[in-house]
């Protein structure tokens, strides 16, 4: 494999590498789809894994030749199918990486290579690690110093609602927390499977988790016409339909939405909580995109805050697990694998088993825990590191705000595509109106229409997006998912290619 490197467009992969890229498995479709794709692309099938480093910097050339000599009408493949900010070219925050480096190699604390403030932070973190080393195991829930930081962070975020450090469990990414909480909830020896109310569309790996545990997905549909809003009537319908089929015990909510980009209002959250209380459901609130809310008039309000403000009895009874992560937001540190769950109102007897089940992982990677600490306690105005930090986060914010407004607008101007306004999160989920002939064709090939569309988009335009069928959608509708946490220049290229491809596609089938 070639070793051409560039740091400019990190989510671009040389056309000849697109097979392996497809094997980066955030969601099932890459996996399912790639054997076909590779066969179609005549790409090498011996390598599986990450070849993102092999990048061609700009798509100047109109055409390239892959390893098998197949000519492609594009120079590189751009992958916006999943939320991997650094992989997509977003730079890590300097302060975060400086502290991390100093914790890993404490000689740096003694040196003059890093700002004093960074060294102090590192020192206090190191003294919270057993043996003063990030190489030690930590307690099950995480380093207690960091548990306290996270709990303070939550309290601050929620306007003073108390949070207890013992209720925080840090794990290797928030996905792991989700899995462990599900392990407590899913009763696989009962006569009926355990059901979990799950949005359609939803982040796909959650469904894989339920499947693995033998639980039932109880789908509720988000209202696309209302900007993907969550409606309690729909929740009620879904729950009713599940009766007799499974024992629905939990409600899974992603807010801000993935893949929809919707942000729930306080009023909506209140209604959902009331519904959960009435129907005796455990709420699992996936709030990993809480930092990325920039839509006009929208703000992030946590389920915990709303619950607490609803007062007793609800605030003392409704069971809630709220998830957050260092992978999203400004830090975007996916690779460090730092996530946490806060467990609220759990039966103390169950908490004991929660501890046991989290213990089986021994502990979360310390680097991920450090990332959470730095997320909870970023530099503040007045700190020497603040100006650089503010500038870096500001440029990420500007990129997101720009993309959030501009991308849906651009998509809406393409015939046959409609896109709801984006309020937060990292993804847009535009709807495709595919010609009947194309739908028929997809059936012949044996693929879902939007999956087939994505295959062709990748094949013909070198753009990798997620097909709606992977996330779930109303029958007869088709969508794609795109990550907008992507440098503007790259995003422009993506949309330009998508538009050309789409128009060509429409022509072909009309």
């Amino acid at each position, binding site marked *: 494999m070639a070793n051409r490197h560039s740091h400019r467009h990190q989510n671009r992969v040389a056309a000849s590498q697109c097979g392996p890229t497809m094997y980066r498995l*955030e969601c099932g479709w890459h996996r399912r789809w790639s054997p076909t794709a590779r066969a179609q692309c005549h790409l090498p099938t011996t390598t599986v894994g990450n070849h993102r480093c092999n990048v061609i910097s700009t798509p100047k050339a109109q055409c390239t030749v892959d390893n098998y000599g197949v000519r492609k009408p594009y120079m590189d493949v751009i992958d916006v199918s999943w939320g991997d900010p650094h992989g997509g070219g977003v730079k890590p925050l300097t302060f975060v990486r400086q502290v991390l480096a100093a914790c890993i190699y404490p000689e740096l604390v003694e040196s003059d*290579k890093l700002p004093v403030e960074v060294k102090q932070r590192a020192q206090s973190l190191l003294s919270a690690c057993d043996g003063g080393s990030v190489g030690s195991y930590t307690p099950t829930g995480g380093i207690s110093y960091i548990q306290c930081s996270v709990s303070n962070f939550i309290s601050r975020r929620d306007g003073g609602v108390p949070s207890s450090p013992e209720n925080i469990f840090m794990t290797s990414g928030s996905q792991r927390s989700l899995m462990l909480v599900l392990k407590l*909830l899913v009763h696989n020896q009962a006569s009926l499977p355990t059901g979990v109310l799950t949005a359609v569309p939803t982040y796909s790996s959650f469904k894989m988790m339920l499947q693995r545990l033998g639980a039932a997905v109880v789908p509720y549909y988000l209202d696309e016409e209302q900007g993907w809003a969550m409606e309690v009537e729909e929740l009620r319908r879904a729950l009713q339909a599940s009766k007799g089929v499974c024992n629905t015990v939990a409600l899974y909510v992603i807010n801000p939405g993935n893949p929809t980009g919707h942000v729930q209002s306080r009023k909506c959250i209140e209604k959902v909580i009331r519904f959960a209380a009435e129907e005796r459901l455990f709420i699992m609130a996936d709030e990993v995109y809480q930092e990325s809310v920039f839509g006009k008039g929208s703000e992030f309000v946590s389920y915990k805050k709303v619950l607490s403000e609803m007062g007793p009895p609800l605030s003392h009874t409704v069971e809630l697990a709220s998830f957050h992560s260092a992978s999203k937001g400004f830090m975007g540190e996916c690779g460090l694998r730092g996530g946490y769950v806060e467990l609220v109102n759990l039966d103390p007897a169950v908490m004991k088993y929660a501890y046991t089940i989290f213990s*089986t992982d021994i502990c979360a990677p310390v680097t991920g825990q450090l990332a959470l600490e730095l997320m909870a306690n970023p530099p503040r105005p007045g700190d020497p590191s603040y100006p650089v930090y503010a500038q870096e986060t500001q440029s990420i914010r500007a990129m997101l705000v720009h993309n959030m407004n501009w991308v849906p607008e651009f998509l809406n101007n393409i015939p046959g595509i409609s896109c709801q306004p984006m309020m937060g999160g990292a993804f847009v989920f535009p709807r495709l109106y595919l010609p009947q002939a194309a739908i028929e064709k997809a059936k012949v090939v044996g693929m879902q229409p939007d999956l087939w569309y994505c295959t062709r988009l990748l094949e013909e335009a070198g753009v990798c997006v997620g097909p709606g069928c992977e996330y779930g959608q109303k029958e007869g509708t088709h969508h794609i998912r795109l990550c907008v946490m992507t440098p503007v220049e790259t995003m422009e290229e993506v949309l330009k290619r998508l538009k050309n491809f789409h128009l060509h596609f429409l022509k072909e089938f009309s």
Partner: protein
Amino acid sequence: MSASRIGQMLSSKSLRVITRENYRFFGNGAQYPAGHLTSGVRSVMIPSPLSPFSSQSRALSGVSEPPRGLVQEKMTENAVFSQNKVLTIDTMNPNVKNVEYAVRGPIVQRAVQIEKELREGVKKPFTEVIKANIGDAHAMGQQPITFFRQVLALCSYPELLKDNMFPEDAKSRARRILQACGGSSLGAYSASQGIDCVRQDVARYIERRDGGVPCDPDNVYLTSGASDGIVTMLKLLVCGEGASKTGVMISIPQYPLYSAALAELGAVQVNYYLNEEKCWSMDLSELERSLAEARKHCNPKVLCIINPGNPTGQVQSRQCIEDVIRFAAKEHLFLMADEVYQDNVYAEGCQFHSFKKVLFELGPQYSNTVELVSFHSTSKCYMGECGFRGGYMEVINMDPEVKAQLIKLVSVRLCPAVPGQALMDLVVNSPQPGEPSYTTFMKERTATLSLLAEKAKLTEEILNTVPGITCNPVQGAMYSFPNISLPQKAIKEAKALGQAPDMFYCMKMLEETGICLVPGSGFGQKDGTYHFRMTILPPTDKLKLLLAKVKEFHQKFTRQYS
């Protein structure tokens, strides 16, 4: 699939993930296409699509009174007790109740409490808690390998590459790792199986270690510590109900990760006992006994071995490994070899032999058929880097369809922590002669390992001077697992408290001396025998002090209860 594979123990048909293929999705079943799958991964990749009115809907129409309603009624009655919770001890996944994880169990939790009390100024007969309960080398003061930390710091903050504070080989390793990361950042997700170039380096390391036995990087999966790999493999292997339920053979004593995972998966734990009289060796006759016994009530499919042993510290001879492999081949068992202590061999005449190497030396009859997975990690050996959660597993002779399932299983957790992967890479690709960091690296490595060897010997010797304690030689790994004789009166008192006698003993020791050990009952032991596990990791001075305190406590305890 080749004919020879048909009879493979772990076939896709016996997979739990597949037998449970009823991906219970009702409503819009059309979202789960199967038609586009290529033949190699046919139907195993995705559950069959359930249309809204397939088998599930029959259940829908057939039930007049939703059982959920029943549950609710009962809950309301119990409201006073359950405080109206959804998740209570009664509704919780019952398997979780059977999960015990002794190395993080009640003793350790109490130790944490005591530490807090000490900080708050509560008077105790000791001033600090000494944690000899867990194989956590850095926590006990072992210093990290300089080279590893330099490279990781460079990867974290690449600006440092411009600095002359770091040696050239550290810089070039860092550049190489960064180039293999998305966006040249440790903060990008990696492929679920792990970074390509790391897996290639692991494969080359295994080849060197095993004297040239080939290793395909495609068979290497990076994991979050070895535990992640072990649990993942067990998930793949466990299936069935009742008499067809998967049985997994584990040594007694064992590392509680195994029993915890099996309890959670609802698998049958099949015990085979190590022979304490023969320095915790593994006897073939005992394996045979245990297997025959298990076949009466479950379907034993897996044999787990920890070598060098945890908690028992024995190192298996080559002959013994050969016997085990032949046994596994004959009895059609999938081998899981936990080899995380492969550099921790101290006793003279002992040597680490990997299962893979021995398997290949037994010839194609075995090397082409016996299914084996071997685990390694960054947490033990001379590095002791537990906090990074680095590890890998190599899977040999696994059915290709099952491999596809394994990829799916590991993809749910996205990827192992990237710094851990980077560290794993450094462990398998350490400084070579001629490189600037080589001398320091070797010095540090050798010093750590010889210190551990010293402490292994010291522990065994001192423990054996205590009447009522007998300790086998600590040939390898990081623990001693001495046998302790407890007075009848103490056993009675423990039982009255509902405690295992050695738990009672260890708890008392913690309260009186501040020493935190794990009772043998947490690992399993022959009925009527009692043990504790103690790490050999504390610094020599502290270890001596600790051993003296153990001695004193044991004598006092014996006096008190006789």
